[in-house]
């Protein structure tokens, strides 16, 4: 599946980063297996502007966008693929993507890690449940007869979402 730019290219071909095998922290860089859209992570300066701006990091110090990008560079990211991982604290406010001086897009890294966790059946139940609800009802939230009455009182038509075509779900294949 090559939908969201999952082209895996060796770094040498892109010419967009230097060829040093180690970054300034002396860590070995993960260079060849990054999906295309995460390749800019290689330009990360570890300046921590993302962490400073991050509202989730202010509340949950275990969540730190800078160290999440670093986990990609030093190839320790698989340790983040669990239901109680800090990656789930992210609020998707997109401030990190917006203000990164190197245009690294730390939220894209978080989103990719979350997808990987879901693929490995390691996402929080709330996420799995949500996907199931959308698939079976066409809506992201449950609703019942009480709602239709409230809608009627406001002069609104019945709420009847359409299910998305089942063929469009890729399921949980590796």
């Amino acid at each position, binding site marked *: 599946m090559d939908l969201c730019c999952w082209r895996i290219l060796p770094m040498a071909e892109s010419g967009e980063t230097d060829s040093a095998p180690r970054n300034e922290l002396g860590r070995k860089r993960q260079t060849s297996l990054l999906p295309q859209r995460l390749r800019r992570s290689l330009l990360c300066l570890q300046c921590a502007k993302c962490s400073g701006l991050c*509202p989730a990091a202010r509340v949950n110090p275990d969540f730190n966008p800078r160290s999440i990008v670093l986990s990609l560079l030093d190839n320790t990211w698989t340790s983040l693929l669990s239901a109680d991982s800090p990656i789930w604290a992210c*609020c*998707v406010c997109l401030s990190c993507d*917006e203000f990164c001086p190197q245009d690294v897009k730390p939220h894209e890294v978080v989103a990719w890690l979350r997808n990987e966790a879901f693929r490995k059946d390691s996402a929080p139940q709330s996420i799995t449940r949500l996907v199931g609800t959308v698939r079976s009802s*066409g809506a*992201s939230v449950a609703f019942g007869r009480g709602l239709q009455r409230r809608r009627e009182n406001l002069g*609104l038509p019945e709420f009847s*979402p359409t299910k*998305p075509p089942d063929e469009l779900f890729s399921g949980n294949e590796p």
Partner: protein
Amino acid sequence: MSEFLLYTGCLIPARFPQAESSARFILNALKADVADAKGLSCCPDPVMFRSASEDDWLTIATANLAKAATQGKKLLTICSGCYETFVDACFRLEDADVRAEVNKRLAKAGLRYDGGIEVVHFARFLEQNIDAVKERIKGEVLLRAALFYGCHILKPSSLMKPDSLRFPRFLHPVAEVCGVELVEWDGSRCCGMGSAEADVGKALSDAVVSAAEEAGADALIVVCPFCFAGLEGVGRLPVLFLQQVVAAAMGAPKDVVGLALHRVKTEIEVREHVSA
């Protein structure tokens, strides 16, 4: 084919139908060329659903865009989540490779997307039609409030094009034309509802409400149902959808504005203009 296609999403019709009835009242009052989008599913949301699978998120969003493109020219969303999903999907689909791959998937359901639909947020629709809105205002809303933009009508700024990320003002005229006195504050914070950790959401919503209180606001005005849920959940300040304020100023009946459904009880006091 109508000019606007109203897409209500799920959270608003299922949890906050007062935001839908107010929006429909305004569209009616403005005599907008609008029809209901038919046969569409959940957008799906750009936070939780996208966290499960970006591929499925983009595919289902494109299926909705494909169906919408046969029914109208502009998809009008009343939720910032739906707005983010569709605007982001449209941007990704500009890449011919991505579009070809998505269309390969859509073909399995007999669908195809070739562009041709514009996505508009209802709040921006009000902003763009401010003169027509002004003409239909019948009274002055007596309220001092903090206008909260939230994240997804602002970012990514390359697509949403706000006037400012930190201190946005582009929706201020919509509230001000209704007579609302807006306090000066940082209305671009994050409500925290996007987090899968409930504690993070609660702490951030609480911080937003505290900032609004410090700025001297008696209520919060929002444009997104996720922000509404988070900020009303704090329980200290009443929260209103922007369209409820506009509908009230246009003279909408109480059972259309739907304040009885709010947990933090409030009334919108309107002083009618005296006709000369």
